């Protein structure tokens, strides 16, 4: 996600400066940690690119690419008092840019009100999925990357605002809950997007190796794209005012519901999520599901995954007749309402090898079956699935 690097860097430096001032005053405890991934992905097509989310400007094709998965992040937490701490994370990745850029995805002050309850104010991870909070931390997951069919539904990953975190141990179960509020801006390759009045709640319960999670979130979503504005102006001018207004992504409600489970046994590891996105304007409402199963034998975890996305909203316009002079306009609108979200499913097989206490090496092969262009980036005429993607990543934490 693009945010002014100068501003981001300035706030990071300011945070470090604040830390060092405090450090001389009271010698607070400072934790420095980090994580990263060195990755390479290659596909068997030159007519489209494969990415983490559909809104990325670049992805992997048959030439291979290191930018889909590679990233490096450094995190610092300053414990100001027993109750108060400040955390900042700087991350270098390609995401919504054509080159690697520094981003500050996390920057907050946390107050531990009690042992069970804490409040964070600042920039937090947007917690809409089960693994949202650490989806960039390859080392903490079995897979090479989260499946685009589910995790691509919401491409934004941070929230400027506040949240309340609650944890409680009740008998044999551990419960945690989160409520959050905020906003986020992002500059995508072709559009600027704004999510306002983001709020949501989620809760999970862990009993033995099993964790169940449910989450619900919503926002008022705005996307500004000059090409879409031009098309909608033409639709309006042709007399289809209602349709033009209906397709305009201006403060449209976006609702997202996600249920997930994970089972982390001695050998067996299984996890899955089902998600439902409902959104207005030209953006597609979609359902997503995935399931992953792996079997850990010493340092090796072979795994298999199936993921799919299904569009639940109408994909063709029935308002503008496909005749005469109106045909190009009708086709333009069809193209627009098919530009975000798609029917697609993927079968994956992979192997995670724990090389060291904090380093793993993963190999994964995906067989991606898109309907039409699916969730592929920069599709060229003549593109068709299925597409095979081969990936290798080295993940580390420190």
């Amino acid at each position, binding site marked *: 996600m693009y945010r002014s690097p100068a501003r981001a860097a300035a706030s990071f430096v300011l945070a470090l400066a604040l830390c060092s001032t405090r450090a001389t005053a009271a010698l607070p405890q400072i*934790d420095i*940690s980090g*994580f990263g991934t060195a990755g390479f992905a290659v596909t068997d097509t030159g007519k489209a690119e494969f990415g983490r989310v559909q809104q990325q400007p670049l992805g992997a094709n048959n030439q291979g690419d290191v930018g889909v998965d590679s990233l490096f*992040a450094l*995190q610092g*937490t300053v414990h100001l008092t027993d109750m108060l701490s400040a*955390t900042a*994370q700087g991350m270098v990745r390609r995401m919504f840019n054509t080159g690697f850029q520094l981003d500050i995805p*996390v920057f*907050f002050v*946390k107050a531990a009100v009690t*042992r*069970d309850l804490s409040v*964070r104010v600042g920039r*937090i*991870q947007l917690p809409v999925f089960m693994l949202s*909070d*650490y989806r*960039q*931390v390859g*080392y*903490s997951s079995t897979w090479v990357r989260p499946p685009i069919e589910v995790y691509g539904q919401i491409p934004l990953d941070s929230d400027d605002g506040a949240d309340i*975190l609650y*944890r409680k*141990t009740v008998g*044999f179960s*551990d419960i945690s809950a989160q409520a959050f509020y905020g906003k986020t801006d992002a500059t995508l390759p072709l559009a600027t997007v704004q999510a306002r009045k983001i709020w949501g709640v989620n809760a999970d319960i*862990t009993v*033995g190796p099993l964790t169940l999670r449910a989450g619900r979130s919503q926002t008022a979503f705005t996307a500004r794209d000059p090409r879409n504005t031009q098309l909608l102006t033409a639709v309006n001018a042709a007399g289809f005012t209602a349709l033009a207004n209906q397709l305009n992504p201006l403060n449209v409600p976006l609702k997202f519901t996600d249920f997930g489970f994970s089972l982390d046994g*001695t050998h067996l590891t299984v996890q899955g999520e089902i998600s439902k996105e409902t959104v207005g304007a030209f953006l597609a409402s979609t359902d997503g599901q995935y399931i992953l199963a792996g079997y*850990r034998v010493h*340092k090796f975890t072979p795994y298999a995954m199936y993921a799919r996305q299904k569009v639940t909203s109408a994909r063709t316009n029935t308002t503008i007749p496909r005749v005469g002079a109106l045909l190009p306009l009708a086709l333009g609108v069809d193209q627009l309402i098919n530009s975000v979200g798609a029917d697609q499913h993927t079968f994956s097989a992979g192997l995670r090898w*724990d090389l*060291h*206490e*904090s380093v*793993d090496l993963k190999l994964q092969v995906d067989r991606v079956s898109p309907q039409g262009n699916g969730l592929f980036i920069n599709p060229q005429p003549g593109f068709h699935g299925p597409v095979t993607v081969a990936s290798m990543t080295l993940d580390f*934490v420190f």
Partner: protein
Amino acid sequence: MKRSSKTMIAAGLTFTAALQQARADVVVIVSAHSTITAITADEIMRLYLGDSNTMTPVDIATPSGTRREFYTKVTGKNDGQVKARWSKLVFTGKGSAPKELPSGEEVVKAVAADPHAIGYVDRSFVNMTVKIIYTVK
């Protein structure tokens, strides 16, 4: 001659057994002032995997035989799996991984000083400032 060699073998066996016992005797401790008197293996596991936050776990830095034995027997997970679990909490700012201390003495000192702390050490480090609430089997 024959008799002395027998004695030596017996002494040797006793010594080996003692060594094995010493290596195997990892105990879980809390401050002597803590109100906790006993804990289950499941509760210890949840604390050390970050699932539960009712107490503050303290670790011995790697490499450590005591640490390996503790994690293998109590959580059934290796260092990598444990690290993967904690990295989920650390990189979201939701929690901090257990503080790693260089020795059993340091663990005893830290646990004695904090009524919420829990640690594991070889039994030989235990003194009056802490109490044993679980013996790793």
